[in-house]
């Protein structure tokens, strides 16, 4: 789809987004990079306030304001979205690049019929007659599996159930057959059975239309099923990025471990104690020194409070990148221990074994 086969369809390069507020500067996104190819899915995982939504809103040009400072590049189909004018952005948004929002009730206008809202998406980007747009709206509703689309096209959003509204949102996003779809917590407000339907629908549509998908979620189960690659975000940064198999098979960052250990799962034995991550996410105005995760990290050591770890590839699998000052062997040892059910406190590495090597320390300073 993009002109050069070697270039990814969508890539974020060292994106930084700051908001200047009365309380200070909020560093919402702090130098993140990732890319996704046509037909592939990347999952961005993180908690509220980790910057995962801001990064995608920025891609759509929805965070632009006099108080926001945006740096870095967002390359999409050979163009840098950050440098486009508002008019140029408007021509891309909803056409080649579309988004599904979390809450389908507040994202649909309660005053207008679902069909009218779908037609607007078509008419904005295409020079077609109203009746053609209406037919397209019916076709779209059918595509996303809404029964009786000819009648439903004249329904108001409140007449739809939660699952149907989310389907309508997806229909709207797909109106112009986008090359890329950003889905921000697309199933968080839905019941599990409906969630399974929506995820299945997204996968089917991706197979059919060959879209790239960025799926933003806090649900590790959802990304495990949907994504090819995963980026874990914490406090505005990516702390770990790898293929889905690697993230779940050999996670490297203590925060990723924390996420994996703190959720009860259907596929493990019952009755095991959950290991919560202590504390809470930091303020994005006054961020911790050194590694941003150090105040909550059970394996923290003195140097970690000063040195900011760069996101580096692992020696044997360079595509698996992690920002952690612990040495890879130590990390492996800790993760194995955690899987055997040992509490994090018991796995504190010996100070001597994990002294930060000088080269890593230097790299950390350069990275800053």
């Amino acid at each position, binding site marked *: 789809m993009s002109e050069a086969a070697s270039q990814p369809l969508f890539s974020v390069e060292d994106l930084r987004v700051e908001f200047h507020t009365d309380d200070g500067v909020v560093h919402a996104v702090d130098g993140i990079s990732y890319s996704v190819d046509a037909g592939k899915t990347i999952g961005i995982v993180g908690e509220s306030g980790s910057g995962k939504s801001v990064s995608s809103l920025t891609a759509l040009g929805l965070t632009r304001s006099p108080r926001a400072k945006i740096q870095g590049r967002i390359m999409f189909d050979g163009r840098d979205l950050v440098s486009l004018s508002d008019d140029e952005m408007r021509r891309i948004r909803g056409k080649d690049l579309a988004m599904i929002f979390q809450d389908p009730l507040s994202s649909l206008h309660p005053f207008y019929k679902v069909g009218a809202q779908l037609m607007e998406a078509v008419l904005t980007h295409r020079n077609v007659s109203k009746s053609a747009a209406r037919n397209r709206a019916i076709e779209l509703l059918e595509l996303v599996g809404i029964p009786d689309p000819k009648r439903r096209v004249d329904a108001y959003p409140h007449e739809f159930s939660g699952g149907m509204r989310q389907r309508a949102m997806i229909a709207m996003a797909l109106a112009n057959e986008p090359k890329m779809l950003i889905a921000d917590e697309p199933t968080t407000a839905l019941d599990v*059975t409906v969630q399974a339907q929506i995820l299945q629908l997204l996968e089917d549509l991706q197979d059919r239309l060959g879209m790239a998908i960025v799926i933003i979620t806090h649900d590790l189960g959802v990304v495990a099923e949907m994504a090819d690659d995963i980026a874990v975000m914490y406090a505005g940064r990516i702390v770990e990025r790898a293929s889905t198999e690697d993230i779940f098979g050999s996670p490297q960052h203590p925060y990723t471990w924390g996420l994996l250990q703190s959720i009860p799962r259907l596929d493990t034995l019952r009755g095991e104690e959950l290991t919560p991550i202590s504390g809470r996410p930091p303020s994005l105005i006054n961020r911790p020194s050194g590694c941003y995760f150090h105040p909550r990290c059970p394996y923290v050591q003195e140097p970690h409070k000063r040195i900011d770890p760069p996101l580096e590839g692992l020696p044997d699998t360079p595509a698996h990148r992690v920002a952690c000052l612990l040495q890879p062997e130590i990390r492996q040892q800790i993760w194995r221990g955690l899987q055997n059910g040992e509490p994090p406190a018991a796995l504190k590495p010996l100070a001597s074994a994990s002294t930060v090597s000088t080269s890593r320390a230097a790299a950390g300073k350069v990275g800053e």
Partner: protein
Amino acid sequence: MSVTDGSQSGETTAASSREPLIEVRDLIKHFPITQGIIVQRQIGAVKAVDGVSFDVLRGETLGIVGETGCGKSTTARLIVRLLDPTSGEIRYEGEDIASRKGDQLKRLHRDMQMVFQDPYSSLNPRRRVGSIIAEPYIIHGMYTGEGERKRRVQELMDRVGLNPEHYNRYPHEFSGGQRQRIGVARAIALEPKVLVADEPVSALDVSIQAQVLNLLRELQREMGLTLIFIAHDLSVVRHMCDRVAVMYLGKIVEMAESDVLYSAPRHPYTGALLSAVPVPDPSGGERKRQLLTGDVPSPANPPRACRFHTRCPKAQTICSEEEPLLEAKPGGAIAACHFPLTDEEVATRLPAALTQGRRNGQPVNAPGPAA
């Protein structure tokens, strides 16, 4: 037919031999739908809870799961008597509490308290945390001395993991997880015997959820609480509960010990729910997803006979003609279904790890209810 009969004749474990603390029989709650401005006529009813019967055993954690609108929260509110039942019986320690009013109801609330879903809207933003937690003492006239009450509230704050020095702060100064701790502190202030938690962690971030779940478990152990735990997240319910009831459109469709329910569900609806849960393990994806089609029908006009027959993959004519009874099924516990799932069907639909433990005969460790 009451649920207890079934559970005792079915899988017998330590839990079912204990005495029931709360007995619910044929509980019904219909919310009227009215028409007209001056003269209101009732034109129908939302059958939120439509004839449920179950026991809550002393010291256990009973989970209630189901989709939005299945009546699980209404059931919880009826038990705590925040709502008046349309009909049916709720016996607490052998006494019928379904029609209690006034002072008698107030006395009941010393024993039964509730933790709400939304830690933002369930705390009064204009009141300080200290006075929010002390509210139950004011209502019930306990710890009347100023210093005594403050000391007691600070003890509670310490117990739920809040800094007692934050006594004079307002709710907005706390994070979601801390606010939920405030809600828990308020609920345990009167040292109740029963705690009803309605989706206590669904509004919280993943890393915070575990903190609150662990806190609830710890308090249950220390105080010997009986916990009724309502949630839509099946993994959380499995983690927390000894027994689980699955609700669909105002009815209980299946009820079992956690381990039995999750490894050998008998009702196709339970099977579908479990099948729909995404499992955070990309390598274990070899199961056939059993997707339900369509949405939950309206509780104002539920389907005839078996309410699930409109979406059920195994439905046959009898399902729309005759309502199945909640009764013991082979290999599982009690379910209301004419054509319960077999072990083979379960094996293809559920995450492998759930059913394996059972098939290999390993002890699927259930937390001892005697603790």
